[in-house]
């Protein structure tokens, strides 16, 4: 089976055939529409990127806030743990003291 199809043209190609497709105003309109679409897409992408950045920033803020709240509670636990470990080292139970 052949790879391509070769067709023989008896007459020369003229500009008459292409005349009905020649219209610069149509091309220009489509070009302007595509440029406008590109601009809209670019603005939309930038807006989306800014929105994502804001969401990430807010999420980070919330996480940091939650962590700092936890840190306020944690020192009490830490103190009792430290006390227990020093008593263990001495070999006394807290009840005995």
């Amino acid at each position, binding site marked *: 089976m*052949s*790879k*391509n*199809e*070769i*067709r*023989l*043209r*008896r*007459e*020369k*190609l003229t*500009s008459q*055939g*292409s005349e*009905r*497709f*020649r219209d*610069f105003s*149509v*091309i*220009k309109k*489509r*070009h*302007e529409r*595509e*440029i406008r679409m590109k601009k809209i897409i670019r603005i939309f992408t930038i807006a989306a990127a800014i929105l994502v950045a804001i969401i990430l920033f807010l999420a980070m803020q919330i996480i940091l806030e939650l962590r700092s709240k936890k840190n306020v509670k944690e020192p009490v636990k830490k103190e009792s743990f430290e006390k227990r470990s020093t008593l263990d080292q001495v070999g006394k139970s807290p009840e005995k003291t």
Partner: protein
Amino acid sequence: MTDEEIRKEHEIIERSKKDANAFSELYEKYFDRIFNFIHRQTDDEDLTGDLCSQTFIIVMNSLPKYEFRGVPFSAWLYKIASNEVRKHYRKNKTKQVFSIEELKIRELVDQNDEEWDEELIQRMLTFMSDLPTDMLQVLELRFFEDKDFKEIAFILDISESGAKMRTYRALDKLRKNFDLKIRYNE
């Protein structure tokens, strides 16, 4: 193309980058050539019209990025048109059509008129249909569009030596198979 013509064309391109209306001059100048180039690879007027419009829209959209690279502006148009044709065949998965003018085949082969017959032409067409697509593309650009090897290399995104090699291989095959004299030897 003379240096003066290249300079003038460059001026129009620069103007077109700022004002789309200025591009109409280049559109009118190259429309027929690009249309015929695509038509030779599709043999379908409506499809050619669509691909030709698409080519010029891409050209207009990409014009701000255009830089002179040692080949005429037309080579850039041919390159975009060639890509559009390739894209069409890849998408539709159909055999690529090459519509060749009988006159061009006669020009390619140095043969006396009385030695030409329908059978020889048909045999040549059958032989050409078996040639790889890239070889046919090079032959088309070299002999039917009169492009030099530098332009062909730019249009098909290959090296200049690669373009020469493909052409000589194709011509060699024609010579050996048909025992014909090929007019183009350079």
